[in-house]
């Protein structure tokens, strides 16, 4: 009798079981979301069919028949909408990636400056942050763009500060090495040098941990990065011919051009985001107790080593999560390009929507692309965050 009593006391109804209940809630929620999603999509499709509005993604293969101002891959008006959208995505990636790197560097420098014991430096840092943080980024973009086309002369009166470089309201045109088979080898050599330098640095670090012997991996790496491409260049016959931009007709032909739209967008985004990153870096460094600095100094570390070996590694743990969201912001803000004429993904998708009239599909594509970019950035930053987290031994 006693045993049965015990048994019934332990046995609970399955809906009272915490675990089962949890699963039921999750399944119900998932079904609800799926149903709402299905209802909305079916409703839109139904109504569009009734109004004879075209739907589906078939338009991606049709001829785009519009031109794009800047492209990193081959594209002409005869290519498809799909390819046009890819050009747009690459343009967005280009400005976002370069922007992320530059804004992180600038933000860190400004953040350290605001904490500097040098009065002038810290004041300049503070003023920078206050100005750029408090002006809407769209206004900054308009300002830098207007600066470019108002301040610089037309291509016929282009400024020529250094031979081979021309600055006009059409952007910056500069000479690049003329086509030669050597250059592709030089690039390969540079990439190879990067890989080798990385492994040397890793080996040197491990050896130092094991034996305490230091290895000048920075200087060796630098030597590799400069020396290996140079050696390849010399071996391939040292071509020195340049492709110099020249004024032909309305514009410069030849060389490489950085457009005012790209420059204005990049400068605007970098300066704006850096002001937020500076604040994050400042907060991160201030979160490390002063005792750490004193302890590091008392064992005789140089000032730069106090910062790079003791303070920064700890501060990074505070800095990385908010930094991630600022870098995501930079990517998302890059869609403001449409206001100053840089052909980013939103602009190309906008034209596509206009010409095909398929707004629902176009907007869905836009959301997909930005979501993918944001998630990829998050994944990378989370990986990095884990890597620098305290390793408990």
């Amino acid at each position, binding site marked *: 009798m006693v045993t049965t009593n015990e048994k019934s006391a332990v046995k609970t109804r399955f809906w009272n079981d915490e675990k089962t209940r949890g699963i039921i809630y999750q399944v119900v929620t998932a079904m609800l979301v799926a149903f709402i999603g299905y209802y*909305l999509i079916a409703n839109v499709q139904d109504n569009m069919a009734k109004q004879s509005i075209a739907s589906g993604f078939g338009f991606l293969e049709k001829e785009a028949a519009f031109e794009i101002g800047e492209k990193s891959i081959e594209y002409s*008006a*005869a290519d498809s909408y799909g390819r046009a959208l890819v050009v747009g995505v690459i343009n967005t990636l280009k400005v976002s990636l370069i922007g992320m790197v530059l804004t992180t560097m600038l933000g860190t420098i400004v953040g350290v400056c605001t904490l500097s014991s040098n009065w002038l430096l810290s004041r300049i840092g503070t003023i920078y942050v206050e100005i750029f943080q408090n002006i809407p980024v769209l206004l900054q973009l308009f300002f830098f763009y207007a600066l470019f086309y108002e301040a610089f002369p037309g291509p016929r009166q282009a400024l020529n500060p250094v031979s081979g470089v021309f600055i006009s309201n059409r952007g910056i045109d500069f000479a690049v090495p003329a086509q030669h088979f050597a250059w592709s080898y030089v690039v390969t050599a540079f990439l190879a040098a990067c890989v080798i330098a990385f492994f040397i640095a890793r080996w040197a670090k491990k050896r130092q941990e094991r034996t305490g012997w230091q290895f000048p991996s920075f200087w060796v790496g630098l030597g590799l990065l400069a020396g290996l491409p140079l050696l390849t260049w010399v071996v391939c016959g040292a071509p020195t011919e340049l492709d110099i931009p020249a004024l*032909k007709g309305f514009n410069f032909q030849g060389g490489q051009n950085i457009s005012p739209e790209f420059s204005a967008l990049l400068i605007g985004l970098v300066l704006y985001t850096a002001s937020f990153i500076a604040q994050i870096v400042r907060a991160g460094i201030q979160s490390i107790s002063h005792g750490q600095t004193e302890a590091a100094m008392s064992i005789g570390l140089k000032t730069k080593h106090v910062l790079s070996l003791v303070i920064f590694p700890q501060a990074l743990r505070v800095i990385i999560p908010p930094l991630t969201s600022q870098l995501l912001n930079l990517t998302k803000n890059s869609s403001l390009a*449409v206001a100053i*004429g840089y052909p980013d993904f939103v602009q190309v998708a*906008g*034209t596509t929507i206009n010409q095909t009239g398929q707004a629902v599909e176009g907007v869905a594509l836009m*959301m997909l692309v930005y*979501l993918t970019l944001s998630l990829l950035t998050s994944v990378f930053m989370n990986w990095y965050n884990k890597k620098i987290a305290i390793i408990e031994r």
Partner: protein
Amino acid sequence: MHQFKSLFIGCTLLLSSAGLVFAGNGDTLKAVQAKGYIQAGVNGDLFGFGKADQKGVWKGLDVDTARAVAVAVFGNFKDRVRYTPLTAKTRFTALQSKEIDLLTRNATQTLGRDTSLGLDFVQVNYYDGQGFMVPKSLGVKSAKELGGATVCVLPGTTTEQNAADFFRSNNMDWKTVTIESTAELSQAFFAGRCDVMTSDASQLAGIRASSPKPDTYMILPDIISKEPLAPAVRHGDNQWKDIVNYAVLTMINAEEFGITSKNVDEMAKSKDPKIQRFLGVTAGNGKALGLDEKFAYNIIKQVGNYGEVFERNVGVNTPLGIERGLNALWTNGGLMYSPPFK
């Protein structure tokens, strides 16, 4: 996780904003009569076609077209038209989603739009064509000399495609600068960011008039496309389509008969049976459209005939200074032609 959440919210907003409703025959007229006004989609930023003046009074050829429709339905246009300024991107969606009853926003009629956007275009109220504007100092006399030029283009219209077609078919290189807002684009053009600006010729005339030095710019004689600008209504409501169509045609027909807002009362006493039918002295036309018999009389009296509307908004005595050209009556070598009102 919050990314998923915002995606979900985004989806919901997107889909609910696209909560499209099928337009049945006669629905629009009933809805418009019930609420007591017409919601018209207009440009909002285009001098001569749709723009509010400093006092907030809407003016323009497209605005007058919307007023003519309001007069046809209500007998007058005062407080009977409400305007929704729309961009090139949002205009068709606004019509599809019933946000507006009528689109009079310099929209080009094309086969693609007619068939895949769920809308119908009615009688063209302005025959336009795409042209090029250049600074006179450039020394260019024809669009064929524009190879290698940087061109300022307004996005979201047929303009981008026409320009691409033109440069492609003439084997010329070109570079585009595409900026969303007309004001920003014009400013970049005036500052010399581009060599050329391309858009509908009427629009170029408006932009040129807004420049600090209009005399230093010229519009090249080449017209590279056909841009029949027409009002549009939702597909499926044929009665409403008829009303809008004949409201526009009334203005054209009035000019053919020589009836103006000034002499319409005298003309109403005319013995000519065609004019008697047209002005509703002899009943029939109004009933056929489901409107008041005096609708044509009211439109002419209150809005004017096509010639009056044209000259008032975009004609040679306005800052735009546009000649009638294609928009003259067919009897004067233009394309404006009305079927008989009987």
